[in-house]
């Protein structure tokens, strides 16, 4: 079974994950005035420049995870 040692970096990741979860929960509760992923993604993919950068990041992440990491 995989276990993780609680080191300072892990604590930061847990805080970030908590913030992200709370934010998604707030969005999910139906705060209509807030901008959720459904409006963020069209904005992010709204131009060639931004779409190209996102696809480049996606490709680099795939290479790192599937070709470099165990």
């Amino acid at each position: 079974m995989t276990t993780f040692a609680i080191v300072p970096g892990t604590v930061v990741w847990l805080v970030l994950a908590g913030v992200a979860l709370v934010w998604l929960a707030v969005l999910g509760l139906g705060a209509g005035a807030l901008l959720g992923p459904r409006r963020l993604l069209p904005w992010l993919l709204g131009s060639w420049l931004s779409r190209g950068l996102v696809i480049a990041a996606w490709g680099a992440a795939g290479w790192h995870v599937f070709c470099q990491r165990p």
Partner: protein
Amino acid sequence: MWGRRESNPHWRRFKRPASADWATPPGTRFFCGPVIISRGDMGGRPAYRYAAFVRTSRLPNRSFIHRPSGRTSRSAVGFALLVAGVIALSAWQAQLSRDSAGAHWGVALVVLGAVVSAIILGRRRQSRTTAAWIAGNIRAVRSWRSQPVGAVISTLVWTVVIAGVVGWDLVSFIYQSPALPTLSYFIGHVTRYRVGRGLFFALWLVVGVFLVSGWRTETPR
């Protein structure tokens, strides 16, 4: 009683509007043949009742507006092939290790295919030009005081979350210390197993499909 125009006192009082302003709101275009009505603010997807948007309609009662994105049998076949391809590629990648040539070539070819597909699919279908996108963002940031409070708060929180994840991952990657694990370190604990690697690869492919094909304009500019 008023069967004849000459004897009708109301004649010409309720004049029918000229054809240009009869049931034709701004931004609406009509084409012959299959009915295509485009309005930038319609949003949403397939078929709309014309009367839902325009009260005074010249179209027959049961007419529908068919937008070009309607799911056809051809697109259903394409979708099925796409799903089969994702499953097959993921199952194949699940068997490979990160050091194998197959894994390297597989990922490289998928990324290359994604770039080529994005260029082909996106030709004249990108919703905005890069210059207009940048100008719009600059304008929105400069006029942040006049923006809705919800939009300002959302932008700030999204910026903190995304910059926090990317920035902290970058810091951890640069230091390469056991006390500062990267995000891929955690993912690596899943992808070291075949099932985990296959599932993560499928997720990565699905995300890529959305990034390549999602949120295009439905009619070429």
